[in-house]
């Protein structure tokens, strides 16, 4: 008889799952977010006033300037729709994106009217699946990697007509980094190898060698201008790779026990996207041994980072997050904006960022100075017989965030210890409920110029949470077999929820 049942529950982004902001840096089963619990903090005070936005809000921190929603359906059938922009590159006014459908080239010469140059390979020749990385490899050329099938090189000097230079079949590849006349390609097959390609002659691209002993689960490679690569490895964390001999890269000691998805380097600072753990800030003044200095919280799950000049950006599924890195090892949060769809990829040039937002490639401008509210959640369940819970509020902007008013349904008391939050600060909103049936909203009024009025849905229910009954469900597995949770009574069940991207 089995002792434990492990159920993996998954969805795809096509599923209509609400994606609220979330305080995913909190990992506890204590039932308390540990924010504002010190005894020396101010006492809880009831929020009063109405829910009206202040008259003069000023400019927002992060503004969507323009972009392109991919809507055209190529070829026959829905599967040929280009979606899921997972990586971006930029060359002048041309932004390259890869995702489900191959490579797409956007014309950003006029941000008010962004358009598509082309999709490559030609969708009418068949759906190519999902490409994962794109990397410029010289004047007018890119390398593309398809995790399952191939490494491909294309001439994109005419962005309206990409031309195949070479393709090399074989799965397992993922990360790309072009350094001078070499292209480095991480390959997860055979325990983790690093391929070295000579791209000095785009008419004769050749693989020079494949070296063993690199990251077994590397998702991306980040290059520096001082002879190092850093592998973002889901198993090893940050793996330094010396390019002292460009054709014989040497793996150093991995740093940290973090699942790292993406890295960008700016000077002596290394920034690592670490999923729901946030963005790791590493001091790489010793390039062979980066040291984690601090971790930056994000509302969602940090999947890509981009650092250039004084600004660092992260795509965190929920949207775009920005920090001032004029002091590179002490970033200051300056902006946070929930995006339209699902933020997966980001690049930047100083205070301007380009975001791959599922099927939208957009340009964003950062204007530091305004406050920016992020809520830990916007859907709360309160026990039918009464009780209380907390929602954390974080100011991801630069200016002070003021909670200027709040209203809620009868029977719900709203309390905070403080109503002014400086940049980067968090506090809790405590909700207390006398009991009964509830399906209503709470309104918060703040001086966040982007969204001064925020709603939190509150419903009554007794799903219970920790110590309470697990909601029963019936789902089919991938073979069509039906599974009902309540039929597993008698032994523990592990539910691991994930999504396929």
């Amino acid at each position, binding site marked *: 008889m089995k002792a*434990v049942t*492990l*159920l*993996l*529950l*998954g*969805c795809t982004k096509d*599923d*209509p*799952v*609400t*994606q*609220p*902001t*979330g*305080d*995913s840096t*909190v*990992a*506890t*089963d*204590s039932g308390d*977010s540990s924010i504002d619990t010190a005894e020396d903090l101010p006492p809880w005070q009831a929020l009063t006033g109405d829910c009206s936005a202040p008259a003069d809000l000023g400019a927002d921190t992060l503004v969507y300037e323009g972009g392109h929603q991919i809507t055209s359906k190529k070829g026959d059938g829905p599967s040929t729709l280009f979606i899921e922009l997972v990586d971006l590159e930029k060359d002048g006014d041309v932004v390259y994106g890869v995702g489900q459908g191959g490579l797409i080239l956007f014309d950003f010469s006029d941000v008010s009217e962004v358009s598509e140059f082309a999709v490559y390979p030609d969708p009418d020749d068949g759906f190519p699946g999902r490409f994962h990385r794109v990397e410029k490899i010289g004047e007018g050329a890119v390398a593309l990697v398809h995790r399952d099938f191939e490494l491909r090189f294309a001439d994109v000097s005419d962005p309206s007509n990409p031309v195949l230079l070479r393709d090399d079949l074989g799965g397992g590849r993922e990360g790309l980094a072009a350094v001078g006349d070499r292209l480095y390609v991480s390959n997860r097959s055979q325990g983790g190898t690093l391929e070295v390609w000579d791209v000095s002659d785009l008419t004769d691209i050749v693989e020079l060698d494949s070296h063993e002993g690199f990251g077994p689960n590397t998702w991306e490679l980040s290059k520096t201008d001082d002879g190092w690569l850093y592998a973002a490895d889901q198993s090893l964390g940050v793996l330094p790779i010396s390019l002292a001999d460009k054709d014989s890269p040497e793996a150093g000691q991995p740093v940290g026990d973090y699942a790292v998805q993406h890295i960008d380097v700016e000077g002596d600072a290394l920034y690592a996207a670490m999923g*729901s*753990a946030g963005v790791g800030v590493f001091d790489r003044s010793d390039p062979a041994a980066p040291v984690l200095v601090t971790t930056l919280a994000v*509302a*969602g799950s940090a999947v890509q980072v981009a650092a250039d000049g004084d600004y660092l950006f992260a795509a*965190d*599924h*929920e949207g775009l997050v920005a920090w001032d890195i004029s002091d590179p090892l002490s970033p200051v949060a300056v902006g946070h904006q929930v995006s339209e769809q699902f933020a997966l990829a980001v690049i930047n040039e100083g205070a301007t960022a380009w975001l791959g937002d599922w099927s939208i490639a957009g340009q964003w401008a950062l204007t530091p100075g305004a406050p920016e509210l992020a809520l*830990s*959640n916007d*859907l709360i*369940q309160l026990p039918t017989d009464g009780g209380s819970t907390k929602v954390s509020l974080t100011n991801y902007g630069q200016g002070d965030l003021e909670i200027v008013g709040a209203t809620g349904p009868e029977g719900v008391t709203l309390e905070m210890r403080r109503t002014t939050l400086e940049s980067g600060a968090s506090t809790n909103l405590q909700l207390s409920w006398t009991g009964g049936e509830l399906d209503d909203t709470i309104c918060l009024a703040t001086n966040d110029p982007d969204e001064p009025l925020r709603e939190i849905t509150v*419903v009554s229910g007794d*799903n*219970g*949470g*920790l*110590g*309470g*009954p*697990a*909601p029963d*469900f019936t*789902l*089919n*597995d991938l073979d069509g*077999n039906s*599974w009902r*949770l309540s039929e597993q*009574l*008698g*032994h*523990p*069940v*592990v*539910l691991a*929820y*994930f999504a396929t991207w």
Partner: protein
Amino acid sequence: MPVLYDQQGDVFKEYRLASPFPTGAYPHDWIIGKDGTIIYFNNRFDADRMIETLERELAE
């Protein structure tokens, strides 16, 4: 190991409500006790705590 497809996201939404920190970001791990109650929730993978929770539950 069964992989279940939550096509409409209904299970996720219901469990999100049942979590002390009902966040929207994936992944999420829950452990349901032998009696059908939720005994563990985390939105980070924490193998040590999961093993500890399971061993405690199995010992009872």
